[in-house]
């Protein structure tokens, strides 16, 4: 789960990090009033609290130099969708003059099975951009997950990105705090970019924190799911999640259902290979019940992007007869199938499954290649 910038900064503040002075403004609130209460004056930076990547480039961050500016920009940002998402909250922050912008992030290195700190003296651009443009500037240091980040490691990283003296110590304190947050919040990513050097200090101008969904039960203080606000999910993805379906929306027009993530992706790839464009990824998982199959089929029929549907099932734990029953149930409910459906059924109880479908007038293939060819012909 991605946290909003203001949440990430509030957490950092609680771990002893100095963050820019700020106020949070909701729609309808008077930003001028709130700024005055907080002792904030222009120039300030107004930032849309949305979770989409590339917020700055999409116009979600604006500098306001006067009180009039503030009013105008606040009104503007509340009305401006950033990659489709209108912000519900704006963060108004003191503008902090600075010369140097650093990058620092902590992620998990899958191969080393260790957290890894990435740092660069060229902050302000994405890590991908830095990796392209200044690859030699990126310092990578692994952390022992049992020991945590030691102060000396943080100092060493600071030295390697060219810091010295007091700034070096401040950077080390910041980085150890960031690691503590990474660790305590079960983060997949803890990042500050840019991290500004301001005199002797370092101040995170932006902060990102992505918490492992599997660990959310340990962080009840992070208010539940924020599907709508997050900008991570489309309208139909949110609907699917609420139905308990593992569904990803794509750009094409062929609905895809598979069992197992690998097989479902493969089914997408297969459709693509034969000239089709998948409208989605939908994995019914292992051992799906007829009920779940019914839900998934009905959902894809309703999903407006799909013109036809390809269902590719290999019965392992999943039983083909159970899948077939689910399809038939969906049909019964809808009266008839408003969109063409091609089914490939193989594995456990495949004959029984195909028999059930035949009786319901649906053709079921054994060979997925034949199935996809048929799909493209319809």
């Amino acid at each position, binding site marked *: 789960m991605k946290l909003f910038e203001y949440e990430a900064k509030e957490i950092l503040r609680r771990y002893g990090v100095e963050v820019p002075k700020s106020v949070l403004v909701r729609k309808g609130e008077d930003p001028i009033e709130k700024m005055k209460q907080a002792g904030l004056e222009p120039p300030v930076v107004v930032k849309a609290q949305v979770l989409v*990547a590339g917020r700055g480039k999409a116009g979600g961050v604006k500098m306001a130099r006067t009180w009039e500016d503030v009013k105008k920009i606040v009104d503007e940002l509340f009305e401006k969708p950033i990659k489709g998402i209108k912000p519900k909250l704006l963060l108004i922050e003191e503008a902090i003059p600075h010369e140097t912008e650093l990058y620092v992030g902590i992620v*998990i290195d*899958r*191969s080393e*099975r*260790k*957290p890894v700190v990435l740092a660069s003296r060229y902050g302000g651009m994405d*890590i*991908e951009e830095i*990796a392209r443009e200044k690859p030699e500037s990126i310092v990578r240091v692994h952390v*022992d*997950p*049992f020991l945590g980040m030691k102060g000396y490691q943080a100092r060493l990283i600071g030295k390697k990105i060219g810091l010295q003296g007091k700034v070096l110590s401040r950077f080390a304190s910041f980085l150890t705090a960031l690691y503590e947050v990474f*660790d305590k919040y*079960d983060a*997949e990513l803890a990042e500050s970019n840019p991290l500004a050097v301001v005199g002797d200090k370092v101040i995170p101008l932006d902060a990102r924190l992505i918490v*492992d*969904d*599997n*660990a959310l*039960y*340990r962080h009840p203080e992070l208010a539940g799911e924020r599907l709508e606000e997050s900008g991570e999910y489309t309208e139909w993805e949110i609907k699917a999640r609420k139905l308990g379906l*593992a569904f*990803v929306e*794509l*750009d094409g027009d062929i609905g895809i259902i*598979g*069992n*197992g*993530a*690998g*097989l*479902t*992706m*493969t089914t*997408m*790839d*297969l*459709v*693509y*290979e034969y000239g089709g464009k*998948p409208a989605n*990824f939908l*994995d019914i998982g*292992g051992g799906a019940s007829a009920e779940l199959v019914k839900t998934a089929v009905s959902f894809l029929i309703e999903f407006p992007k799909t013109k036809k549907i390809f269902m590719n099932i*290999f*019965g*392992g*734990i*999943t039983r083909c007869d159970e899948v077939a029953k689910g399809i038939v149930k969906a049909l019964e409910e809808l009266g008839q199938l408003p969109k063409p459906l091609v089914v490939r059924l*193989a*594995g*456990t109880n495949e004959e029984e499954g195909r028999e059930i479908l035949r009786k319901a007038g649906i053709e079921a293939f054994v*060979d*997925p*290649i034949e199935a996809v060819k048929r799909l493209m012909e319809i």
Partner: protein
Amino acid sequence: MAVLLDENARVIVQGITGREGSFHTRLMLEYGTKIVAGVTPGKGGMTVHGVPVYDTMAEAVAEHPEANTSIIFVPARFAPDAVYEAVDAGIKLVVVITEHIPVHETLKFVNYARQKGTTIIGPNCPGIISPGKAKVGIMPGHVFKPGNIGIVSRSGTLTYEIGYALSKKGYGQSTVIGIGGDPVIGLSFTEALRLFQEDPETEAVVLVGEIGGDMEERAAEMIKRGEFTKPVVAFIAGRTAPPGKRMGHAGAIIMMGTGTYEGKVKALTEAGVKVAKTPFEIPSLVEEVLKK
């Protein structure tokens, strides 16, 4: 022979009294796996499908010192503890079926197990089967046949599909390892290849990858360095998956420009690996590489 698992496996099922644990204990027993004990805290003294249940691994191992393998069906919140318990009880192969384990927990127990010399398969995996010898996992046993092809895979259903297709064409398997779909897992591709390299029974390996991470690239480097010398056929799922989206598995995501389909295929191809465009091509590619 086979890798990691053969007829000498003596298995403890951790979380045996749960719905999944008890169901798959039955299936594994039916397959012929020697399950010597089960563990569920507070349920010591019961039996499940004739298997005696203990409160702790220490007791289970004390009563069944021949135990060398465990499989974990414990819910995510308690699964890491079950892993430490198995490792500390001296179990040398631990298969973690449980999904949704926080990745910071997995990081820790995988490092711990490595220090102690225990192999972890998973988490979030279908397990391991050496056809005809033993099955420690949740895969349908009937799709696999004994033979000389090793399979190592990040994907469950796809493995069954490929195993089935190979079996039908007469290519049985030495050992099939579903290493799991999480971002951080125990046994990796390179470690699995190292084991298959040493196994005289295995003549070729099918490697089933997915987008996300760099495990496939690392396997390719290893093959390129000449540390794996048997023929390899690979398939990578997710060619058409968009970046930044999780495709079911937490591990299957293209992030920060790494873990792309193209990168993986390029690395493998450069290492001399035959990469199948669809999994259904795999039997014929296997035929091809074995002929050489």
